């Protein structure tokens, strides 16, 4: 029953926001829906840790520790993003961003906001569906759904550049996901031959995983390549990452944060499900080598672009490509340590990334530019909170101790050494160091330095509370992971390793 509620809550919040008239009511409905969703997700997590997988409707919806983890992260990201969104859009509204085009007065920014507040629950609904769908076909439908729900979010501001970004996003995403669909069809075909079922259950992951060893090997090999390319496009693995910088810099900041910290996990989740099937069928070697190749390539691609980056929002996108690469690489290293490292990294990344986006958004709204060149540095004087948090988030996201991403990256490194990938692990360190220094130099130049004499930034309590709240969570997580959360991550790692 809890699975149904997890889907119903965001699905109901979407039309509700569409029909309401007052802005404050819409915001409250949105926040309430995501708060309820987070509680439900936590309840699901507790239940899965205590008593194993939950399923309803003959296993049509199915949640094990891995799905529960992704649902939990998704709902957390959705909640913090919607808290931030309130402050962000109020700031936009005060600055007349919505008025300019519509030639309307202030209260009529509501139609535009309604668009945002009815599309984000739809996006969150698709993300939750990705994690709860047992059927691999429905998984594909839901991932395609995340693209469709977010295209309009990307072109929210209706600038020429946002249309360009939305177009790239839709077409590259569409072509990429069609490859994933082909991979899904091939998987169904090999299962069909082995199991002979023509019913719906023939595509259910929980059924497939038990019989993966009997599948036709060449078919699964081809299917995995297609899935890797397809869901890899959605996750932004190089060389299919080209849409990412455009989309992350053009979408409104809370939506971009949701894409970077939420949708990314869902795409990787799809990949992980197929990885489990493939390594059961073919042994771990084949999938691992491909994942290591693409993971290192993504990290390597991100390095030069971060070092010479001119635009701080595009830099966040390259950081996201880098982190996708790290997670894919960790999965490729494999073994209990590699898988645990990957899931820890996914968790910590989802918590840390939104803060980076929020700070970048605050800076952009204050300076009205997203170019390093036009920002003259010394932001700490005009916006002490966002400036300090930006610096902290930078350290956290590049994996400096004591922040939690250091822990996961260290685990991944240990996995690399213990599995004998000596040179690759050294390359991994080199990329991390290069990204760390590039990122830190850019942000330090932006935040520190003499006071350029800007007026102090307006302080909005919604923005402040989301930044402070998230920063507290990040600091606490650096020293202490709640035991139930860690057990959930361990359970998920067990599923990736053992299948059940």
């Amino acid at each position, binding site marked *: 029953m809890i699975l149904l509620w997890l889907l119903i809550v965001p699905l109901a919040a979407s039309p509700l926001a569409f029909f309401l008239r007052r802005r404050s009511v819409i915001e409250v409905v949105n926040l309430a829906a995501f708060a309820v969703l987070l509680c439900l997700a936590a309840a699901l997590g507790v239940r899965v840790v205590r008593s194993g997988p939950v399923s309803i409707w003959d296993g049509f919806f199915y949640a094990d520790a891995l799905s529960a983890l992704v649902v939990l992260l998704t709902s957390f990201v959705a909640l913090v993003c919607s808290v931030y969104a309130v402050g962000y859009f109020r700031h936009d509204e005060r600055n007349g961003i919505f008025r300019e085009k519509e030639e309307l007065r202030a209260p009529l920014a509501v139609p535009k906001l309604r668009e945002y507040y009815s599309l984000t629950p739809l996006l969150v609904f698709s993300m939750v569906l990705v994690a709860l769908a047992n059927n691999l076909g429905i998984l594909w439908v839901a991932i395609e759904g995340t693209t469709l729900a977010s*295209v309009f979010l990307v072109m929210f501001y209706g600038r020429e550049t946002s249309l360009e*970004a939305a177009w790239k996003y839709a077409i590259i995403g*569409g072509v990429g996901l069609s490859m994933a669909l082909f991979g899904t069809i091939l998987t169904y075909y090999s299962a*069909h031959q082995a199991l002979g079922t023509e019913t719906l259950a023939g595509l259910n992951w929980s059924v497939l995983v038990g019989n993966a060893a009997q599948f036709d090997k060449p078919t699964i090999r081809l299917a995995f390549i297609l899935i890797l390319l397809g869901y890899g496009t959605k996750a932004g693995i190089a060389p299919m990452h080209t849409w990412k910088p455009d989309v992350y810099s053009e979408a409104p900041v809370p939506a971009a944060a949701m894409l970077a910290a939420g949708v990314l996990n869902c795409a990787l989740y799809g990949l992980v499900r197929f990885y489990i099937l493939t390594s059961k069928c073919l042994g771990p070697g084949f999938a691992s080598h491909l994942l290591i190749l693409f993971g290192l390539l993504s990290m390597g691609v991100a390095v030069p672009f971060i070092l010479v980056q001119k635009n701080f929002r*595009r830099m966040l996108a390259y950081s996201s490509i880098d982190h996708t690469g790290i997670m894919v690489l960790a999965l490729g290293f494999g073994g209990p340590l590699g898988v645990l490292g990957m899931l820890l990294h996914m968790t910590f990344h989802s918590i840390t990334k939104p803060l980076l986006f929020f700070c970048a958004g605050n800076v952009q709204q204050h300076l009205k530019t997203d170019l390093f060149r036009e920002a003259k540095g010394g932001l700490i004087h005009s916006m002490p909170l966002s400036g300090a948090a930006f610096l902290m988030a930078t350290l956290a996201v590049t994996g400096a101790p004591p922040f939690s991403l250091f822990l996961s990256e260290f685990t991944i490194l240990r996995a690399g050494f213990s599995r004998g990938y000596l040179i690759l692990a050294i390359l991994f360190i080199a990329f991390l160091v290069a990204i760390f220094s590039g990122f830190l130099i850019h942000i330090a130049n932006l935040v520190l330095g003499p006071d350029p004499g800007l007026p102090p930034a307006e302080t909005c309590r919604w923005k402040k509370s989301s930044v402070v709240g998230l920063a507290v969570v990040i600091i606490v997580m650096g020293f202490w992971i709640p035991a139930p959360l860690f057990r959930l991550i361990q359970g998920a790692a067990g599923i990736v390793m053992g299948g059940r």
Partner: protein
Amino acid sequence: MTFLQDPEFGDRIITLMAALVLVLQIAAVGQRWIVSSIRIFAVQSFLLAAIAGIIAYFNHATHIYIAALLILGLKAVLLPWLLERLVKRIEIRREIEPLINAPLSILIAGCLTLVGYVVAQSFYHPEETSVRAALGHNTLAVAIALFLIGFFTTLNRRKALTQVLGLLSLENGLFLAAISLTYGMPLVVELGIFFDVLVAVMVLGILVFRIREAFDSMDVSKLRKLRE
């Protein structure tokens, strides 16, 4: 009317139609008029629906009938109608220039067809099943070729609308692959995919419209402000 019960006969009809589908796909590659591209897509979808219908008839499978009806209604009628209306609204008739010229594009499409046949070889196990069960298996090569050519068309076009058509024909290839390998996906999945395709076309249609308004052109090669 005994030949209507004969799977051998059904197999021949399906092969013939699949060949036609492939010919249409290659014709679409060289096509310069947007409206004719849309009509080619409509006819192609109609043939796919017919193939699905024949497979359903010989296998007595209800869910394939439903898939066939859906593809007939959605891809052969509704989507072409929507797209033609969009073309009328934005008053654009022809694709000015694909990135690679027509003769070379057709040559590439021919090569991709060969690739399709080579890939499909690895899935061909003639010894293991009877004729009835293997009905339509030889269309897999066509399906892979459709997929690859659709991929190529999407990349090769400059107009936003023709890119959408490329994406749709790619989707047709996937449908043919699903129907020839496993007699279609489970119905719920099939419905979900159709729903996604419909929504995707609407979203892309709105996007095309907005791009047309903002740039006074659908030429996506003009979308080049976002660079490093």
